[in-house]
Structure formats: structure tokens, C-alpha cells
């Protein structure tokens, strides 16, 4: 033995191994990561991968079969609902495990545990926001409800067992790619994670409000100005339930507190805290047309929920057949059942109700320990919980002490100002409807096997948050829509601003009875529809809040009322319609007010393109780019002078507000720039805004980004926002106000058209693929077709079709006896 050289080479080699086994910043342990037998190469799925296998799994009651078609869509044949849920859990885990766990970690405020503190501790802030909002607390309550019901408990238990059965058999080399990249391992799945997933959706869809921004605006602007900036009535509203519908008198009449004028409406306090907000434009379209408007004489139901266009996609497509039901549609990896889909009798789809169910209360604590607060003329002891937030790369976890009040947890206090850097001495408790007990899983369990309107109606009863517009159509011919959810009955403007938390008179006083929710069955006009607009006009006896997009609903109803002999193909065209009704209403106003004498020859070229534009946001159009820049500068010009006076969080008026104001009143008071002595006119600001957009348009032209799709730049973006795992620059049109609501990172997450003929004729597509593995050919199967507005027929496989050539692989499952 040669001691010295041995020692040196041993140390060097060992050192190298040690280094390659270590995470360095964002770089995974390179040795492990690059190893063709352990690392990412193992995730490079052969293009001709066969998925056939025979599995013997404990937890299954009976034999079952899964037939995978050419798109890797599973057609599950199980002998019971319980087995179906078990298999669904197993399949979700097999194809989407990382995403399921990541999303539920996010919901539980555990991102820092995986991703570290983030720039400026933003992941810690995210985690604190989620936990303080009560996501875990709410999920635990939901779990209790799920487990109180024997059917949903049985199904969730089976689902969880299925996920865990997959995790148990997972070798290190088979870990999903993201685990290898971030260097961590999955933990066992639990029923609580299912509940957390439901809360994740509740946060996404019912976690928005503008309470702080409007509170600040109320203190900054006069009453009259405020009413013009945030009007409660939208002139062009076409509500879900048409104007003129009569409603039942209110079953509960909330009492306005006697101190409302002095302590609430005229309160001039401001808020510096900055909330974390879900994607603002989470919305959707759905509609059902009755047989009298279709060529087949049978109803057609359509739905396209607009969510973040993530990869792996939020949806997983499947068919589930048991002796009790035969259901096709999309499911959420992370939860059992089909969420949007159809069975042999009926179809259903959902859009977001968008009602304000999150309110803040200003809390007066006795001192900085926040253990005692002033409530109903007395000092009351606050509850308290301590969150332990593990932070990757840090030795000690972050401990967050959260006080709780009669209203709910204290979301913001001097130790947590959200995403704002401004220190504050105030405390605000949050009351969020999603923290009340409910069992939304029951709704989907029942919809799967719903046979008629009554079953649908009964299924809906369990659905409380996030409030949804659930559309329904049956083969029998019935079409219906209900705005379903448990909504607090509020007095007018209750919770639009931060409320005083010093007495009980500002609390929610009760819930609107479910049968008072807006609905329609088999209306004379032959269709029902929703697109997140206000559900009713002002004759509805309850206060609804005011953040509702107008235009998609308006366009859908206009198109549908003029259509007849409708075919599924017509419905696909409507779902992918790029017509922009907002632009169509704004265009004449802009053209009326452009001052031609201020334009150069080049400016006029752009103006001509705009003039000739048919208000369709097609991918190759330049018109939408010109319009979008022009409108942006117009609203900046009009509101900047007022809004830039303050650095408080504020909300700019909605696009619809500005357009409706200008259409009514060319002397809209905000047109005048308060920083100049002269009084600006609409003509001046419209022309100035146009001229300001010219250099931007010229620059966009040089970069070849003057056409709409290139300018808008839609992505299907990986959850970790890694460009390499995303599909970028998709050639798709549409936009915020088009029915085809494809924006940059957000859009129609599942387009579905179902014609309820004897043999159901259904089509669908989502921007993703069945496999969540970036190394699989099935990772992005549908994306290009989705962007092009194409659909795939949804094949409801029949028992006698097991030999059909569309079936590529078969998985045979059988129960494994524990005793051998």
C-alpha cells in the first residue's frame, strides 16, 4: 500500500463524491441527478413505452381493469365506487404525484419547506398568508365533515390508500422529476390533503376581495367620486338570471348596525397591509341549450373553466365505470371523483360565482402580546395558535404566533403586514366562508351518478364554498343552472370595507337560504348560461358585492339567443370565439374622439389598422395590440393624477367602469388632469393616449410582436415557473373579454361540449397532457390542438369495446390477500 498517494486520491475521490451528493443553491446533487440509473434520465420515458401491467394491490376489494387509450386516458372498470376511488388515487399518483403534493403543500403553507425562503422571504410570506387565512384550520373542519359521512369517508379512505399504495412501491429512480430537481421525497398521502386541495380551490376561487383597497379609496375620495369610481350598477349587465325575474322576499333581513354611518361609512382609516391575491381573472363560461334550439332536438351542455394554464395541468381526464354509474370527465389530481363531466343520463359544468365571502375586521388589542381584545364593551381573551414553518436551508424554523378572535384568525398585525414593507400598528382579523364546515366532496360523489334534475339538485345541497354556477342538462331534456353555495346575507356594502371589530353588530348575521339562490330551469329562451357576471339585477333582495366581469356573459347570451339548429360543432366555435365585445363597444368612442390634426402619417397608418379591425382577437391581428395599448394609456391618463397621490394599496376602476362612464358622460370628471391648470377634454386624452402608444407599437413591430398572439404570449407554464418545462409562445387568440378567454398564463383549462343524444356525443380538450412527467411524450399531448381551437372526441368506452384499436394498454388489477 502506498500510503501518501492512496490518502490523497482517496480524499480527492471521496470529496468529489461528497460534493456531487450535495445540493448547491438551486443545483440538485449532480451525481444523483445525472446518474442514468437513478437521476433524471430515468424520467426520460421511451417514446414507445408500454403501460400494460398486472397489479395485485391490498386495499382493492375486487378485480378491476384500466384500459388506456391512445392519449393515455384511462377507462376504469371497477366493481364498486370504493374500488373506483382507490384506482383513481393510484392513477393520479402514478401520473401526477408531484403536482398533487406540491399543490397541497402550497395550500398548507409549506412552500418554504421545499423551496426555501425565496427572494425577500416571499415564500415565507406566502406560507404565513395561507396559514393565517386558516387554510389548514379550514381543511381540518372540512375533513371532519367528510369523515362524518360514511360514503365520502369510504371513498376518501380508498383514494388515499390508492395514492399510498403507489408511493409505497416507488423506487428512488422512479420519483417524479421535480422531486429529483428539488431534492426531496414525497410523504404519505392523507385525507387531510384531499381537504387541503379543496381549500386550495376555495382560495383560488373564493379568496379574492378588495376590502383594503376600497377602504383606502373611501378615505381618499369624496362620496360622489367614490360612487363614480366604483359604481354598484353596471349598465350593460346581462345577469345569469335575466332582468325582470321575480325573487322571493328575503328570508333573512340583515340589520345595519346603528353605528354604521359614523364608524363604517364615514370612517377615514387607511390600511397599508398588502394581501396576497389569487389570480384575478379566475372565471369561466358555461351554458346549456335546450333541445328546441339544437339540430338533434336534445340539449347540449358546454363548459370551459378558466384557470391558470399550468403544467402539469390542473385536470386529469378519465372514464369511470362501476355497476352504479358510467361517468366521463375531468378530475382533480388530489381528490376523488369526476368534477366536470357527464354520465349516461346527464352532464354538468361549473363556473365561479365570485361572490365576496371574505371580510376583514379591525381589532383593538390591549397590548402587543395580542392576548386580549376589545369586544362588546369588554376585554375578551383571544385564542392563539403557533405555526411552525420549516424553511429549507435554515437551521431553525420560522415560528408564527397567530391570535384568533370571534371573527376568525388575525390575518395581519404588526408582525405580519403581508406583502407590504410599510410597518403598521393595526391588526385585522379575517372571516372567510371557506373556514366554515362543509363537505363539497359529497356533491361530486352524487353528481357522478346523478340520473335526473332531482339528483342534481340534491347533490348541490352539500356545496358551500367556493360558490359556483352549476349548469345541468339531462337526456330527458331538462336544462338548469343554480348559483350554488352558502352565502352570508349581507346588508348593503357590508364587508366592502374593513369593518369595526369592536362589537358583534358588524358580524355576518346568517346565511341566505339555499333555495333563494339564483337559478333557472327550462327557461322560455331555450338556454341557461353563466360567465361570472353578476347573477341577478338589483331587485334581488341581497347584497352581492360588485366585482363581476360583464362582457363574456353579454357576448354568450347575444350569440346564443340568435342561434338555432345548434350542433356540437357550433358550440365549439362559440367556445373558441375571439370576438371582443368590450372592444366593439369602446371602438366607436375612441374613433369619435381622436383628433386627426395631431397625427402624423405614421400615426394614421396605425389608426387605419385599428379602424379596419373587426374586433376579433385572432392570433394574427394587429388591431387588438393597438387597442390594448391605447386603452391602457387612456385609463392611465384619466386616473393616474388622482391615484398616484397616494402610495396606499388602491384598486383602479374596472375597464367596464371607465367605458360605461365615458359612454354616458364625455365630461367624466376624472378626465381632467388635476395637476394642470387647464381642463382636459375627452378628445385630448383619447388622442394623447393614442400618441403615447405609438412608440410602443413601433418597438413591438421591430421585435415582430405587433400581432396579437405574439404580443399576448400565452404559456402553459410549469408550476415551478421553469421555462424549460413550460410550453411558451402558444399561437392562440382571445383574451380577457373574449369567450375564448386565453390570457398569458391563464385561460380555458378544459373545454367541454356534450350533446345529450341517446348515445352521448361529447368533445373536450385541455392545455396539457395526461402525464405530469416533463420527460414523457404525453406531457403536452393536447396543447397545440388546444391552442388551435381543436377538440378530441370524448370516447365513452363500452364493455364490448375492450378489443377496440383505440385501446393501447391494459392494466389488470386484483386484490392482494394479506395472508399468504
Amino acid at each position, binding site marked *: *500500500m*502506498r500510503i501518501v*498517494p*492512496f490518502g490523497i*486520491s*482517496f480524499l*480527492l*475521490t471521496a470529496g*468529489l*463524491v461528497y460534493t*456531487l*451528493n450535495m445540493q448547491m443553491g438551486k*443545483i440538485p446533487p*449532480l*451525481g*444523483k441527478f*445525472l*446518474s*442514468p*440509473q*437513478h*437521476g*433524471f*434520465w*430515468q*424520467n*426520460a*420515458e*421511451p*417514446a*414507445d413505452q408500454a403501460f400494460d401491467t398486472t397489479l395485485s394491490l391490498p386495499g382493492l376489494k375486487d378485480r378491476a381493469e384500466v384500459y388506456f387509450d391512445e392519449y393515455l386516458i384511462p377507462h376504469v372498470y371497477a366493481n364498486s365506487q370504493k374500488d373506483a376511488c382507490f384506482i383513481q388515487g393510484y392513477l393520479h399518483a402514478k401520473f401526477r404525484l408531484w403536482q398533487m403534493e406540491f399543490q397541497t403543500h402550497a395550500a398548507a403553507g409549506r412552500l418554504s419547506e421545499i423551496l426555501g425562503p425565496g427572494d425577500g422571504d416571499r415564500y415565507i410570506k406566502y406560507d404565513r398568508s395561507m396559514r393565517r387565512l386558516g387554510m389548514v384550520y379550514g381543511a381540518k373542519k372540512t375533513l371532519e365533515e367528510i369523515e362524518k359521512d360514511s360514503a365520502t369517508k369510504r371513498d376518501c379512505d380508498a383514494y388515499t390508500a390508492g395514492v399510498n399504495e403507489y408511493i409505497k412501491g416507488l423506487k*428512488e429512480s422512479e420519483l417524479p*422529476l421535480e422531486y429529483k*430537481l428539488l431534492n426531496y421525497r414525497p410523504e404519505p398521502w392523507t385525507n387531510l390533503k384531499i381537504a387541503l386541495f379543496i381549500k386550495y380551490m376555495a382560495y383560488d376561487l373564493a379568496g379574492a376581495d378588495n376590502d383594503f383597497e376600497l377602504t383606502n379609496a373611501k378615505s381618499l375620495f369624496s362620496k360622489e367620486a367614490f360612487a363614480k369610481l366604483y359604481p354598484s350598477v353596471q349598465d350593460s349587465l346581462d345577469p345569469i338570471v335575466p332582468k325582470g325575474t321575480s325573487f322571493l322576499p328575503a328570508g333573512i333581513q340583515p340589520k345595519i348596525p346603528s353605528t354604521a354611518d359614523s364608524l363604517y361609512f364615514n370612517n377615514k382609516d387607511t390600511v397599508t397591509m398588502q394581501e396576497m391575491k389569487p389570480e384575478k381573472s379566475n372565471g369561466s363560461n358555461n351554458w346549456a341549450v335546450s333541445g328546441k334550439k339544437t339540430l338533434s332536438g336534445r340539449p347540449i351542455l358546454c363548459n370551459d373553466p378558466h384557470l391558470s394554464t399550468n403544467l402539469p395541468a390542473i385536470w386529469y381526464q378519465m372514464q369511470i365505470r362501476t355497476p352504479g354509474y358510467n361517468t366521463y370527465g375531468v378530475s382533480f389530481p388530489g381528490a376523488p371523483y369526476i368534477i366536470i363531466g357527464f354520465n349516461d343520463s346527464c352532464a354538468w359544468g361549473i363556473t365561479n360565482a365570485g361572490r365576496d365571502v371574505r371580510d376583514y375586521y379591525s381589532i383593538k388589542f390591549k397590548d402587543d402580546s395580542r392576548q386580549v381584545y376589545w369586544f362588546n364593551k369588554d376585554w375578551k381573551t383571544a385564542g392563539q395558535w403557533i405555526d411552525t414553518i420549516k424553511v429549507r436551508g435554515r437551521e431553525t424554523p420560522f415560528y408564527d404566533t397567530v391570535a384568533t378572535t370571534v371573527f376568525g384568525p388575525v390575518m395581519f398585525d404588526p408582525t405580519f403586514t403581508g406583502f407590504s414593507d410599510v410597518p403598521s400598528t393595526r391588526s385585522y382579523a379575517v372571516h372567510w366562508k371557506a373556514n366554515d364546515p362543509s363537505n363539497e366532496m359529497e356533491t361530486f360523489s352524487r353528481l357522478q351518478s346523478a340520473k335526473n334534475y332531482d339528483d342534481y339538485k340534491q347533490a348541490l345541497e352539500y356545496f358551500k364554498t367556493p360558490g359556483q354556477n352549476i349548469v345541468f342538462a339531462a337526456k330527458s331534456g331538462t336544462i338548469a343552472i343554480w348559483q350554488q353555495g352558502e352565502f352570508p346575507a349581507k346588508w348593503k356594502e357590508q364587508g366592502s370595507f374593513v369593518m369595526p371589530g369592536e362589537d358583534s353588530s358588524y358580524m355576518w348575521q346568517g346565511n341566505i337560504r339555499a333555495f333563494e339562490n339564483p337559478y333557472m330551469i327550462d327557461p322560455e329562451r331555450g338556454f341557461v348560461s353563466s360567465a361570472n357576471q353578476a347573477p341577478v339585477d338589483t331587485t334581488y333582495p341581497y347584497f352581492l358585492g360588485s366585482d363581476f366581469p360583464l362582457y363574456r356573459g353579454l357576448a354568450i347570451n347575444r350569440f346564443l339567443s340568435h342561434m338555432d339548429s345548434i350542433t356540437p360543432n357550433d358550440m365549439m366555435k362559440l367556445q373558441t370565439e375571439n370576438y371582443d365585445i368590450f372592444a366593439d363597444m369602446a371602438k366607436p368612442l375612441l374613433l369619435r374622439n381622436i383628433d386627426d390634426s395631431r397625427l402624423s402619417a405614421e400615426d394614421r397608418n396605425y389608426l387605419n389598422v385599428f379602424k379596419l379591425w373587426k374586433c376579433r382577437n385572432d392570433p394574427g391581428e394587429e388591431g387588438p395590440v393597438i387597442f390594448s395599448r391605447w386603452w391602457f394609456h387612456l385609463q392611465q391618463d384619466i386616473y393616474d393624477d388622482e391615484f398616484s397621490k397616494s402610495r396606499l394599496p388602491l384598486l383602479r376602476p374596472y375597464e367596464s367602469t371607465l367605458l360605461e362612464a365615458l359612454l354616458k358622460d364625455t365630461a367624466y370628471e376624472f378626465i381632467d388632469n388635476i395637476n394642470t391648470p387647464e381642463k382636459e377634454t375627452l378628445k385630448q386624452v383619447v388622442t394623447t393616449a393614442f400618441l403615447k402608444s405609438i412608440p410602443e407599437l413601433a418597438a413591438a413591430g421591430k421585435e415582430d410582436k405587433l400581432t396579437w398572439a405574439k404580443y399576448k404570449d400565452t404559456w402553459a407554464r410549469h408550476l415551478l415557473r*421553469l*421555462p*424549460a*418545462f413550460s410550453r411558451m409562445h402558444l399561437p392562440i387568440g382571445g383574451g380577457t373579454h373574449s369567450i375564448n378567454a386565453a390570457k398569458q398564463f391563464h385561460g380555458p383549462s378544459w373545454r367541454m361540449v356534450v350533446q345529450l343524444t341517446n348515445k352521448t356525443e361529447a368533445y373536450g380538450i385541455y392545455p396539457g397532457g395526461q402525464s405530469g412527467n*416533463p*420527460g*414523457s*411524450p404525453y*406531457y403536452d399531448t393536447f396543447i397545440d390542438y388546444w391552442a388551435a381551437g381543436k377538440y378530441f372526441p370524448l370516447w365513452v368506452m363500452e364493455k364490448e369495446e375492450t378489443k377496440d384499436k383505440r385501446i393501447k394498454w391494459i392494466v389488470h388489477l386484483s386484490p392482494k390477500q394479506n395472508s399468504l
Partner: protein
Amino acid sequence: MDRSFEPQTKLIIIIHYDMKFLITILLIALLSFLCGLYLPWWGFALAACLVGALIPQRPGLSFLAGFLALFLLWGGLACFINAANNSILSVKIAQILPLNGSPVLLILVTGFVAALVGGGAALTGCYLTGKAPLRETEEELSLPYPEEEPVA
């Protein structure tokens, strides 16, 4: 000592010598592959070390054998996997690492990382059992490639 051989003998020695080198490479690669099935990613270092210890060679050649064995094994496996995958994943990983999105570079890097460890491990093994340079060994090893003219 007479160091001149007949050309035929010389050839046999070269073949014998190269065979030994080749067998070392193959043995390291094979054992490394097996280790990869049952041990963590660094398992091959044990294999390379073991083979380096059991087959005595000049240290430089030992290192080279370990290096080449692992370069070929990891590079080869990566190449094979990549071909079956139509480079779907390698293009993406080569953007993250960042290697300009080039699968070839990624395969080379994969091979090189393992090769460094493999070489080092084989060398370590070689020193573990190797004796201090003896004349005999020196002689045997340098036979086919006399570095200097024998002194008469």
C-alpha cells in the same frame, strides 16, 4: 539483460497488456452497472475501487481505466435512454443546467462526472494494493513501450 524481443512476442505482449486494460474497463463498467441497480448513485465508486485494487496496473492506467469505464457506462446509458426518448427530456434539462439545450453536451457532462469519480476510485484502489514501484513491475509495464533506449 536482453530487452529485445522477436516482433511476434512483442505483439503477444501488447495484446496481453491491452487485454488486461480492456478487461479492467469492462469489469469496472459491468460491476458499476450492477451497483447502480442496488446501491445509491455513488455505488460504482466501490466497484471501480475494488477492480483497481484487484487488477494491478500502473496508477495512470488504473485511473484511465476507471475514467473510461464510467464515461462509457454513464455516457452510453444516457445515450441509449436519450435515443429511446427522442431527446424530449434532455433538451429541457440542458436548458436548466444550463448547457444551451444541447443533449450531446448533457450526455458528455453525464459521462464526465461519473468518469472523474470512477477514475479517482480506481486510482484509490490501485494505491490500496499497489506496491511501491519495483523494478520488476516497472519493467513488465514498460516493456511494450520502452521509453528510452536500453543501455548496452
